[in-house]
């Protein structure tokens, strides 16, 4: 059976063993094998970009799936718990959720303020049983939540710009390879002095492989970039929502 990569295997054969009726140029790899070093470099860089963008896409999809599941669980735990310490205990198993990071930052800040409030009493303890520690600065707690949200957003958006970069430059790299290939092809045509289709077509086809490879790398990158950007916006909205909810609860329960 004739396979698509037949010309590649023909390279490995000794010249005497090769089939004289089927030279290079009849398949994709034959075209690549015949192309110039620069064209091969272009194709290699596009392959690397494709590998990277697919790896990032798959990883981020997996990450967002994990985030969505754990965020839902975290919200459930948070709303059912009567104490922040119970939520804090659950955070270890829900570390993938960005809300966990926001909550922990707020919890640490809240604890720090309450501890200082306790220390300011001078006795190191409560003066009476009715007295309870009070929040010293709601703004400071807000800022801590804001910082945590910012860190979580950076985590969410990490590696996504690589997709945008791939989507932008891969077609241009491919186009560059094509233009270069066509230049080489026309030089060859000029040397042979023939303008027949049999002479022109292989060179053009060889050059166009680079454009095809560029589009192969760019199209999935565009799709996944838009998809992941949309998911990031949804999670960012959930983070803002949770931070405000946390602030309200803290103000309601720990205001002096």
């Amino acid at each position, binding site marked *: 059976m004739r396979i698509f990569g037949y010309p590649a295997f023909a390279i490995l054969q000794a010249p005497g063993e090769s089939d004289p009726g089927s030279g290079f140029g009849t398949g994709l790899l034959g075209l690549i094998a015949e192309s110039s070093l620069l064209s091969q470099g272009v194709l290699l860089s596009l392959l690397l970009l494709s590998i990277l963008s697919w790896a990032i896409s798959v990883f981020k999809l997996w990450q967002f799936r994990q985030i969505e599941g754990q965020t839902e669980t975290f919200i459930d735990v948070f709303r059912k718990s009567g104490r922040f310490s119970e939520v804090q205990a659950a955070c270890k198993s829900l570390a993938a959720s960005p809300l966990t990071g926001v909550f922990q930052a707020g919890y640490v800040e809240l604890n720090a303020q309450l501890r200082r409030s306790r220390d300011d009493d001078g006795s190191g303890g409560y003066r009476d049983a009715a007295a309870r520690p009070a929040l010293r600065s709601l703004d400071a707690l807000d800022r801590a939540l804001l910082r945590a949200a910012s*860190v979580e957003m950076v985590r969410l958006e990490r590696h996504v710009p690589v997709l945008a970069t791939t989507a932008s430059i891969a077609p241009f790299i491919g186009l560059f390879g094509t233009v270069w290939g066509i230049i080489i092809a026309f030089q060859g045509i000029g040397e042979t002095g023939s303008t027949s289709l049999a002479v022109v077509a292989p060179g053009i086809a060889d050059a166009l492989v680079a454009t095809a490879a560029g589009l192969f790398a760019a199209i999935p990158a565009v799709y996944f970039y838009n998809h992941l950007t949309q998911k990031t916006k949804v999670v960012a909205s959930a983070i803002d929502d949770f931070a405000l909810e946390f602030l309200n609860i803290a103000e309601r329960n720990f205001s002096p």
Partner: protein
Amino acid sequence: MREAASELLVERAREGDGLRRTLLGSSAAHLFVIATLLLAPADWFSRPAEETLDVMTLRLGGPEGPGVGGRTALGGRPVQEVVTLPEARRPQWIQPPAPAPPRMVLPVPEEVTRRRPEPETEVPTVPEEARGRRLTTGPEEVLGSTMADTGVQGIGIGLSGGGLGGSGGEVAIEDFCCPEYLATMLDLIRRRWDRHQRVTGTVIVRFEIGRSGRIDAVTVDRGSGYLALDLAAQRAVLLTRQIQPLPERFGQDTLNVRLTFEYRP
């Protein structure tokens, strides 16, 4: 000095995200795709070759051909041919006779010499019908439809190799034993074909003739873009339904036919 939550935030920001594993997976997947490209059959990536099933291609439409005989219209196209023109009737120029040489005559009185001499013979002029006519240049090439001896055997349906233009051009009957059978089949189908439509187009209908002469598997192989044309062509074949059994000389059990219906204004 350090903010209370700073340590936690820094720790979360530094957390590894496991991208390395997916990078390895992506590399493996790309290698797999490349290997698939290498090892896959070539026809996966190219249009499959035209089906080599033994299918007869016939074409309906256009005028019907002659019943018998080897003289068929040469594609219905105008043909240049040298035609011998009849010899044009050239006007005969009548040369007036040369004036007679002067003769020695006796002087005559003046009143006699003034008189105009009467012409001895009447001089004929150029005939009226010869005026303004272009001189002929001999035989000329003219355009016209002509019959030429193509040396082929007509089968009465315009299906011979050099048959009617547009109607008998695509017939592969050289492998088929019995052109008369095709003539009958096409005649039956043509009777049920409503060729008079408002639009023009070409429909290719594919069907199968069984050993018993039954027509099955009627499908529109290539539509014209107009439902009415497609249906009219398909209907013609479906209505025919049963024709003569396949000739015994034809060895196969079925005869696959692609019939082209041409709708012309």
